[in-house]
């Protein structure tokens, strides 16, 4: 008898869950910008996502022509500076804010908006196309100056089909501080204890050797014009210029992975479970050597930075609402434009993280967007439970079997008792 009563309670609970997915004010997307007002939103920072943000600016303006975005691609450092000085609505950075920077800008949220991959390009007359395989040890060895010739066993043993010459390797790197260098040195630090000890990671590092040039185009120019050279550039830049690029050993050391939008995207799903929430520190976050056999190992998120209370950086609440809607649009609808510009779209789990971050934003302490996660609506009751209920009511299965099914629902968090 008692069992029957509690079962009834559970059934009522199922009804309650399916019937009330929304609380009174919650909604799945933020309010659109007030159509009766004109808004100008300002952002500043990283140059890497600039083409994408610029396309977003145009596309968003098509949809909401009363909102204009003014994004200055002055570099991540400059963006963080303006963010700290509160002169822009949001900033963009290729590198998470350091602890010291977070102290200068308390209440900063990190919202990943795209993913960048770094590709190792080379100029080998003997290997005119892509396809050179490089282990992580080989990449680190080359940039440390320990592997100096192309026919070194560390390279040759992984490329049995290629005719590697007995020529000196010329390395090229960025002379300007850059997020690309940060991603690349983050990778080298991860895979090589020697690199970690001697050099470390950063936007500008004390390179032990090699030629330097400014910008992706500068590094590409050196590699293109110098035979037997090797360098690193952004994925999009390597693809657009048609340079030969290497497949790099994955984090599991199980295969060589060619850099593509898919393999870099795989890297981001590989770490999705370990990401912090938007208001926490992202210092340690890295897509480098992400788990998974298809994960390309040299990649990183690029972030939008904004304050958890927008009063200090916006004119009024309506502008703050417009800012939130714009960012929301960027990480949801805007993602479909990423691949056309060779940017890697975000995985759903990362988008969800961004949405939860945006929901935390307030204006003068007042919440702007009461977000009800889609996730709770995904928690459907499996079909076999429904069948179980039918069979139980028809007396085809035992009480115990039915209770087992309900316990499964409780375990999965679909039912709460």
């Amino acid at each position, binding site marked *: 008898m008692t069992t029957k009563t509690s079962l009834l309670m559970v059934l009522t609970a199922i009804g309650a869950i399916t019937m009330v997915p929304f609380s009174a004010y919650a909604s799945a997307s933020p309010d659109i910008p007030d159509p009766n007002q004109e808004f100008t939103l300002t952002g500043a920072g990283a140059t890497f996502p600039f083409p994408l943000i610029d396309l977003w600016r145009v596309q968003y303006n098509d949809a909401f022509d009363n909102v204009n975005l003014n994004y200055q691609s002055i570099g991540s450092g400059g963006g963080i500076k303006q963010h700290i000085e509160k002169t822009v609505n949001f900033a963009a950075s290729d590198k998470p804010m350091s602890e010291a920077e977070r102290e200068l800008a308390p209440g900063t949220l990190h919202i990943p908006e795209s993913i960048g991959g770094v590709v190792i390009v080379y100029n080998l007359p003997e290997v005119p196309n892509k396809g050179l395989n490089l282990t992580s040890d080989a990449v680190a060895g080359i940039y440390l100056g320990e592997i100096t010739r192309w026919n070194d066993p560390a390279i040759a043993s992984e490329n049995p089909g290629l005719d590697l010459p007995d020529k000196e390797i010329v390395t090229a790197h960025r002379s*300007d501080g850059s997020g690309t260098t940060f991603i690349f040195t983050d990778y080298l630090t991860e895979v090589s204890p020697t690199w970690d000890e001697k050099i470390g990671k950063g936007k500008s590092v004390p390179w032990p050797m090699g030629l330097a040039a400014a910008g992706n185009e500068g590094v590409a120019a050196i590699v293109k014009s110098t035979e037997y050279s090797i360098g690193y550039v952004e994925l999009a830049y390597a693809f657009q210029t048609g340079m030969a690029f290497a497949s790099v050993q994955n984090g599991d050391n199980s295969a060589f992975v060619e850099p593509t939008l898919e393999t870099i995207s795989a890297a981001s799903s590989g770490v999705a479970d370990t990401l912090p929430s938007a208001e926490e520190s992202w210092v340690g976050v890295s897509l480098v050597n992400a788990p998974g056999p298809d994960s390309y190992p040299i990649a990183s998120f690029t972030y939008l930075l904004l304050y958890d209370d927008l009063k200090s950086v916006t004119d009024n609440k309506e502008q703050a609402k417009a800012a939130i809607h714009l960012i929301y649009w960027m990480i949801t609808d805007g993602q479909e434009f990423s691949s056309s510009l060779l940017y890697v779209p975000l995985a759903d789990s990362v988008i969800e993280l961004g949405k939860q971050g945006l929901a935390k934003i307030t204006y003068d302490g007042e919440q702007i967007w009461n977000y009800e996660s889609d996730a709770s609506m995904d928690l459907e009751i499996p079909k076999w439970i429904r069948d179980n209920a039918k069979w139980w009511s028809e007396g085809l299965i035992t009480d115990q079997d039915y209770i087992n099914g309900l316990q499964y629902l409780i375990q999965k968090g679909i039912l709460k008792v």
Partner: protein
Amino acid sequence: MDEKIGVQSRQRINSDQIFKMGATIAGAFVLVMIVLMIFQLVSESYPIWEEEGLAFVIGTDWNAVEGRESFGALPYILGTLTTAALAMAIGVPLSIGIAMFVSDAPPKIGAPLGFLVELLAAVPSVIYGLWGLYVFREYFIDYVEEPLHLAFGDSIWLFSGNPFGLDIFTASVVLAIMIIPTVSSVAREVMRAVPQQQKEAAYMLGATKWEMFKLAIFPYSKTGLIGASILGLGRAVGETMAVTMLIGSATGANAIPYSLFDPSQTISGIIASEFPEASLAGLHLPALIGTGLILLAIAMCINIVAHLLVTRMLKVKEGAINN
């Protein structure tokens, strides 16, 4: 009549006063700018002087990695001075030669040539940089650096480095081209200012063209020519874009040039390269601003030395005339 004069003089007084005010403001403006600049540079670079002290000027480490920060500007000071000196060594004789030709050639040839040389000054430095990187460098490696390296690489240390075309030699040659218009146009004006009688007197004594330059023009225009060179040096020391693209942008101890074919880095180059991404927290930004302060000090020293040189020569000349 008297009244009219009075009005005129009053008007003159008014315009004099306006002129005085205008000139004072203009003069004060320069001074205020310099003082503000120094103040800003000192205050923003203060943390690095506090941390490194004199080691910042004589140190050779340059590490911006968080937690391992260590900064010394010596390699960039050396890089700046070396490229500027090399550029002067190549550019100044060439410029004076151009000035000699233009000032003494028939106007039909001299005028258009002078115009063309001045046109070089209108080319933006990024164009020089791109041209140097994509065009000049390739030829320079093949026809200058490689042959020099093959011929003298083993015997003369100057040519010992491996020639890649991104080094102080390439940067200095392009820099030399960039200072030519400044130096040669000022030198030409200085030479033109030499009284015609001087030149004719030299010719009357039976001087050849070269002897005329040696006897009549150079002694007369010496200070002016030094002034012209100093203007060129000013440009060479501060030039950023083209040099940054061509010098190879080494950092730290790697940036100390041992041979002509070694990459290096200049002060303005390191600022241009690293400033946009320098972190606000930490010492990187103060270090870069500190190098700016050093550059300002170098520029001031150059100007003071030039000033002393010119005034000393003037004295010598006055003495000669008085005797």
